[in-house]
Structure formats: structure tokens, C-alpha cells
């Protein structure tokens, strides 16, 4: 009895918080974009860009604030998410600044709108706002499970967000897609926020209904088919996705929502039949819409043979220009500021920003970017695996799955792998909504991973354990 042992309960094993790892990685994430910025300035103007050190310092301060908030309020969070998002955001601003310097785009804007306004300062502003929002989420949301309470409110909220762009007087039609609303001079893409809100609804709803969906089923041709009444909500989501597609000309968003739902449904019920049903429904929906909506047909034709209709169709020209950008980049790329990806014209710094990566950073740069995105997705999935509560698991996998789908749909679209859809590359593309929404997404994942990795509170000392004698064979 001379040795006091504590083997009766699983003790609070202190995991390393990894905050210092995060800080080190964050330093790289700040320095790399500053070098990129210098590189663009030297390549285009032959001198270091103006205010390089001021901007660099500002960027470092933003990253520092984010790190401080994580250190203070989400101590056990995943150490990779923040540096990866910071790196992408920083490089995104440099890419946008680089495209701002393009005479070709400046002339195009002057011809089309009468004036050119650079996008990089706005993007910097939105980044600062986004970091503030990131901090706010971590400060306010102490535990992600609180969100469970807002399951049905989230559904209503998501629907409102999705419908807003088609409300007359509020929606703005930009290049054929009705996914923007303009409020007081700002244009907002509600779909980006709806992505997160609707994940809350799916997670809450599926957590409650998962048993009913998984167990009450009939067997048919080797598949477990759900009951009709369980199918109802799924059909509703499906119909909603199709409506978004038809009325807002937004193939990407509808694909994203439906895909996210199928992923979460599968995780909740562990039934393969849901995947099959989901796939059949999306293929069916896609075929129906493709045969009626002309803009979808144009996109599909452009995907099949961009050079066949290059001179006759704008959609074909865009895809053709984009893949020529990638091809012209080759293995090592033209170098920052030395490509001609601005030939794409409109949306060069938003939907098609990845083409600039392709041309100026080459195959090696594109692969690096894809791996960074892959890492974010992987950390998200890992967070889902580590989460201890079903709501957290579903929420995390929903967000990561949606993120993965978005990367695939956008990068696949500009690379001609799948038909082009109107979505933006997270963190890279110019646009306030996208930056804000994706930083919220990262904040939520950080919160869930913090909860997952946080050591369980030390159990209350139990008097019984003191009494128990440990018998050791000697």
C-alpha cells in the first residue's frame, strides 16, 4: 500500500494542445503570401509593391488575432485548420491584386461599366471582417451542441436565404445567375451562408430521425427502402435543390445542397440504399433540368467540346480559355504576374481564379493548392471522427463534405472535368460572402474539434475508489 496508484478510472489524459504548432505554421502562412505579393510586384512593375510591409504587418496582425482567440477560447482545436485557411486567404488576395494589375481587365471593365475599381482592397476589408466574425463565432459559440436547438429555425432561415435572390427588387442578375442580392450597394451571395445554416438543420433533423430512417424500411431487390413518410423530407430537399437550379440558374448550389444532404443521410443511417437513392435522384433531376433549361445545355455542350463551339458560344469560350490557361502554364507555370489568364475576361478573379493559379503557378502550384484544400477536408473529416456527439459528427461531416464538393465542382468546372457551374473557390475567389462564410465554416470546425479533443473533466473524487485495494500477484 505504499504506492498510491490511480487505476480505477480513466484519468484526464492531457492531450497536447498543439497551439505552438499552429503558431509556427501560421508564421509560414503569413510569410508565403507576402513573398508572393513581392513577386507579383517585381514581375509586373519591376519594383516591390507599395505598402508591402504595411500590408504584410496588417495580415500578420489579423492572423495573430485569430490565433490568440483560438488559443484562449478553443485551446484543443485542430492546429492545421487556421494556418491552411490563412494561407489560402492570403494567396487569394495576392491573386486578386495580380489580376487588378492587368491592363486587359482594366480596359474591359472600363468598356463594360465605364470605370474600373480594384478588387484587392475590398478583399482585404472582407478578410478583416471575416477574421472578426471568426473570433465572434468562437467567443459566442462555446459549445456547438447549442445549435441543436435551432434545428427548425435553421431550416426556415436557409429557405429564406435561398429564396432571397429571386425576390424582385432585391435580387441581382449577374451574368445570368441569380445568386446575388444587393443591399445598400453591397452584393451578397446568400447561398454561401445558407450552406452552413442548412448543415445545422440537416444535422439536427437527422440526429433525431436517424433510427426511423435506418430501421423502418422494406427490403427490395437487396436494398432497404425507406417508408414513404420518411422519404418526405428528402423529397422536399430534392425539390428545393431543383428549384434553386431552375429559378436561380445555379447548378453548383443545388448540387452542393443535395450532395451534402445525401452524405449526411448516409452517415446518420449507415444505409447504402440512401446513396443509391440519392444518386438516382440527382441524375434524374439533372437529366430533367438539362433537357429543359437552355443554359444548362450550353454548359454541358461547352464541357463536352469547348473548342467545337469556341467562336459561337460564350460558355464554350470561357471553358476553352480556362483550359488553355492551365495548358499554357505547363509544369512550372509562367510565374506570378507573367501569365495571360486575364484573357478569360469576366469573372477572372472570381469563378475562374483557379485558372490563374494554373497558368502562373503551373502544375506544381495547382497540385499544392489542391493538397491544401485536401488537407482542410481531411482535418474536417477527422474532426467528425473524433467528435463525441452525433450532432457534432453530422455537422462536421456535412460542412467538410460540402467543402469537398465545392472544391470538386469549382476546380473540376474550370479544368473542364465536369460542366462549369457558377461557384467560387473558397478563400481564393474575390467576393465578400464567400470569404465570410468560409471563415465561419472554419470557426465551426475549430469549435467542434476543440470540443472533441478537449480532455474530459476530471471525475469527481469517489470515496469508493480509495477503499478498493489493488491486488497484485507477486
Amino acid at each position, binding site marked *: 500500500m505504499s504506492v498510491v496508484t490511480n487505476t480505477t478510472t480513466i484519468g484526464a489524459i492531457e492531450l497536447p494542445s498543439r497551439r505552438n504548432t499552429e503558431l509556427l505554421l501560421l508564421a509560414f502562412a503569413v510569410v508565403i503570401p507576402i513573398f508572393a505579393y513581392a513577386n507579383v510586384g517585381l514581375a509586373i512593375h519591376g519594383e516591390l509593391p507599395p505598402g508591402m510591409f504595411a500590408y504584410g504587418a496588417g495580415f500578420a496582425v489579423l492572423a495573430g488575432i485569430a490565433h490568440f482567440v483560438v488559443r484562449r477560447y478553443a485551446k484543443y482545436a485542430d492546429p492545421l485548420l487556421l494556418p491552411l485557411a490563412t494561407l489560402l486567404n492570403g494567396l487569394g488576395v495576392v491573386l486578386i491584386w495580380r489580376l487588378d494589375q492587368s491592363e*486587359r481587365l482594366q*480596359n474591359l471593365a472600363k468598356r463594360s461599366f465605364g470605370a474600373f475599381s480594384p478588387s484587392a482592397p475590398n478583399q482585404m476589408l472582407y478578410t478583416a471582417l471575416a477574421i472578426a466574425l471568426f473570433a465572434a463565432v468562437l467567443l459566442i459559440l462555446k459549445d456547438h451542441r447549442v445549435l441543436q436547438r435551432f434545428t427548425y429555425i435553421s431550416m426556415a432561415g436557409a429557405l429564406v436565404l435561398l429564396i432571397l435572390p429571386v425576390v424582385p427588387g432585391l435580387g441581382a442578375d449577374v451574368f445570368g445567375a441569380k445568386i446575388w442580392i444587393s443591399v445598400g450597394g453591397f452584393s451578397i451571395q446568400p447561398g454561401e451562408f445558407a450552406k452552413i445554416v442548412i448543415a445545422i438543420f440537416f444535422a439536427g433533423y437527422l440526429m433525431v430521425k436517424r433510427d426511423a430512417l435506418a430501421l423502418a424500411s422494406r427490403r427490395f431487390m437487396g436494398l432497404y427502402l425507406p417508408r414513404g413518410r420518411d422519404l418526405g423530407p428528402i423529397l422536399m430537399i430534392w425539390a428545393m435543390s431543383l428549384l434553386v437550379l431552375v429559378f436561380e440558374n445555379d447548378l453548383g448550389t443545388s448540387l452542393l445542397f443535395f450532395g451534402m444532404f445525401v*452524405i449526411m443521410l*448516409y*452517415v*446518420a443511417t*449507415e444505409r447504402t440504399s440512401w446513396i443509391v437513392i440519392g444518386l438516382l435522384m440527382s441524375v434524374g433531376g439533372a437529366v430533367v433540368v438539362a433537357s429543359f433549361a437552355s443554359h444548362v445545355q450550353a454548359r454541358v455542350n461547352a464541357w463536352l467540346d469547348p*473548342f467545337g463551339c*469556341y467562336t459561337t458560344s460564350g460558355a464554350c469560350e470561357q471553358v*476553352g480559355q480556362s*483550359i*488553355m490557361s*492551365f*495548358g*499554357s*502554364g*505547363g*509544369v512550372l507555370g509562367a510565374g506570378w504576374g507573367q501569365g*495571360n489568364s486575364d*484573357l478569360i475576361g469576366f469573372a477572372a478573379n472570381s469563378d475562374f481564379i483557379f485558372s490563374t493559379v*494554373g497558368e502562373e503557378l*503551373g*502544375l506544381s502550384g*495547382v*497540385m499544392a493548392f*489542391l*493538397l491544401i*484544400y*485536401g488537407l482542410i*477536408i*481531411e482535418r474536417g*473529416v477527422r474532426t*467528425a*471522427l473524433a467528435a463525441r456527439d*452525433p450532432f457534432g*459528427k*453530422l455537422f462536421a*461531416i456535412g460542412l*467538410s*463534405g460540402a467543402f*469537398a*464538393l465545392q*472544391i*470538386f465542382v469549382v*476546380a*473540376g468546372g474550370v*479544368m*473542364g*472535368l465536369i460542366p462549369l457551374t457558377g461557384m467560387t473557390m473558397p478563400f481564393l475567389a474575390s467576393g465578400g460572402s464567400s470569404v465570410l462564410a468560409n471563415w465561419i465554416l472554419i470557426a465551426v470546425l475549430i469549435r467542434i474539434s476543440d470540443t472533441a479533443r478537449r480532455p474530459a473533466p476530471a471525475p469527481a473524487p469517489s470515496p469508493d475508489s480509495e477503499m478498493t485495494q489493488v491486488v497484485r500477484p507477486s
Partner: protein
Amino acid sequence: MNKPLRRISLFCGLLVLALLIRTNWLQYVQAEELSTRKENRRVQIAQYATERGNIIVQGEPITGSTVTDGSDYKYKRTYKDGALWSPVTGYASQAFGATQLESLEDGILTGNDDRLFFDRTIGMFTGEKKQGGNVVTTLNRAAQQAAFEKLGTKKGAVAAIDPRTGAILALVSTPSYDPSSFAGNSKADEKAWVELKDSEDKKLVNRALRETYPPGSTFKVVTAAAALEHGVVKGIDDPTDTPEPYILPGTKTQLPNSHTGCEKASLNEALRISCNSVFANLGDKVTRDKMVETAEKFGFNNDKIDTPVRAFASVYDKKMGRDGNAQSSIGQFNTAATPLQMAMVTAAIANDGKLMKPYMVDQLTAPNLDIIEKHEPQEMSRPLSADNAQKVQQMMVNVVEKGTGEKARIKGVTVGGKTGTAQHGEGNKKRPYAWFISYAENSDGTSPVAVAVVIEDSEGTARDDISGGGLAAPVAKAVMEAVLNG
């Protein structure tokens, strides 16, 4: 819930993997094809991003470059005497592409050629901008100008060759165009381009290389060479067995002569007064296949005559019947020749039967004027023996001194030539083509110039006056004089 999570994670991995494979496909496997396809404006942007090298005639550039603002393309091509030199240079237009030398030697002119790799690498270290190399041509400014001025407003072409080497001395096509007028990509350039492209006179066509005409009587020198080579005629002054009137073999059609005295005329006399009957008769006796053989040795039926700008193939039909062959022997029927081809025929005869490969690029030089490539004269073929060549020369001199070619006479210089008036069109109703081929000799007996002139149906000339001797011979004379005096 962890099993489906792992599967989803695998699925997400596959999505990223698909993207990675796709980017490798685009940026590695297809990179070359995508970066050079015609829709890719980067090709032109790179082409005009640096000052283009120049095309040089006798030490002086005939091209230049200027900086343009507000365009994708930094430098624009300019031309000095564009209309004069366009059959040589072709054009390099930001909006409408490049042709001929501008296109073929684009690698040298832009500095992208592999042979300039070393210069580019040095430039990377010294910080010098990439420069294009130069293309040094064999052309003779005086001869080119003489031909261009003499053709004036008439529609036609001139090709002149140095028979000893094959170097092209003059290459003129009228009406011509100024490639400067559409070198940029502005609205004015487009207007000029559309006008030229749709012009009734086909101004963009390089008639000297890329238009074939029935050679008419000028082809008789080929028939004469074939008759001598294949032993049909032994002595040029021996009478032939040509009847008058001559009936085309296998038909009842009579082949008319425009001159009397062709019955049983000797080869020499027949060439002097351009007897159709004698040469049709001789061509028939040589037989089709042997006529084809000789014509091909002179360069007919060859679609790969690269100067380096490729000339159209001249034609001597390989499958026609006897009557067709007889007509072809006087340069009618299906026979067609480019002005360059007829200049090659003349050059081969003037060079004692040795045909040199025609060329117009003498040297390619690096920006620092180092020679990258120098053309060495090459023998292309020997259509006739030196002995027979001298006989044909003698007959051609006779044509100029005593026959139809007297307008090409140059005082104190031995000149040989042959006229031609080729009929064409349905029932020969169109205004005929006037031809003249000739060469001039130095005092040492070698020939520094052979020239072929063709003039299309020109307005304002009485039909009777359209003859090689009247219209085309003075042009040839001016070109020969320019070369001899130069």
C-alpha cells in the same frame, strides 16, 4: 457512425484525386497541344511581345517594328516599301496571322528558335530583353524595283534567279498589297484586311510562286530540250518532217501557226518564229512519258519546291493521250507553270543544263549578327546535257537577235529568250497571258540572271498587242539590266 465517415472520407479523397489527375492531364499531357492551339491568343501575344527581328535585303532591313499602345500586342510589324516586298516577306499581322517568310522563319524572328537558346539564356542573366534574329535574303533590290516599276498597274508576276546558284533575285507580284496596312489589330486594320481578302484582283496572292498559268510558247524550250536529249533531233539546223497544215495525232483538228514558213522547219527556225506545228510534232515523237521525264527534271509536277516559301506545283499531265501531249508540248492543254518554274527552266538552260535549287534565304543570323545557318547552293537535277544546253542557248539567243524577242535585246550583252502568248478560257475567249523568259550572259559566258515574266490580260491593250514580245520582254530586259549593272 464511424464506418460511413471513413467511407465519406475516402470519397472526398477520390474527389481530390480526380482533380489531381485532371490537372496532370491538362498541364502535362496536353500542355503542348493546349498552349499552341490556334484559339490560344498567347501564341500571338508572345509573337509580338518583343521586337521582331528583320528581313534583310542587301544589308538593309525591309521590315521594322513599332510599339503600339492599348493592345494585347506590344510590337507591331512595319514594312518599308511593303507593296514591293510583300511577295518575299509575306505578312505578320497581330490579328490575321503570318504567312511566307514571316511565318516560316517565325522562330528566328521572335527569338524563340531552339538555335537561339544560348542567346536567350545569356539574356536571362544580363537582364537584356529577348531579341529576334534576322533573315538575310538573296534578293536584289535594283532587280526587284525594276520589275515592280515596269509591271506598273498591269496584273502579272516576275521571278528572277541567279542560274549559277539558284538564288532568287526578284520576286514580284502585281497588283500587290502593303502588309503594314493590316499589321495591327485595330478597326482600320480589319477594314484593310477585308478589302484585300475580297479584292477582285486577288491582291494577297503571290503570283510569282502561288499562281500557275499555261506557259504557252515559252514551254517550247522544254520541248526543244526533250527533243535533243531523247535524240529525236540531232542538229538544230536539220529540217524536221513537220507537214503543213499539221493535224493533231488521232484527231482531225488542225493546229494553226501564226507565222508562215513552219513546214519542215528546223528546230532553230521553229523556235525563232515560234512554230506550233513543229513543237507539237516533236513532242509527239518524244512521246508523253519522255516529255514528262524531262519536264519533271526541270521541276514540273513537284509540289515540294521550297524557297523556303513553298511554290505551287507546276503541271505536266502524266495521263493524257497523244493529242493532249502534242498540245501540251506547246504549253497549252493541261500544262501550267508558275513564274518561278519558268525562271527555273531558263536558269537550267543558262547554267549549261544544271538546275540549282531555288532559294531566297541566304542566312539566318542571331541578334548579335552571328550566323546561325547559311544556305549552300544545291544542285537539284540535270534536265539536259551541257552540250544540248548550249544548243538551246544558241537558239534562244537567235530568238532575241532575229526573232520574236527583239525587245529584250541589250547592247553589248548576249541575251537569250523566248516569248509566249498563252491562250486560256473557254474557247480561248479570255484575253491571253503574255509570257517572256530570258537570261543574260556575262562576258565570261556564265549567266548571272534568268528571268520569267508573265502578264495577265491587261485592260487597255489591244488583243493583238498582247504578246510576250510586246508586253513582257521589256520587263525582263529591265530586270536583266538591273542585275548586270548592279
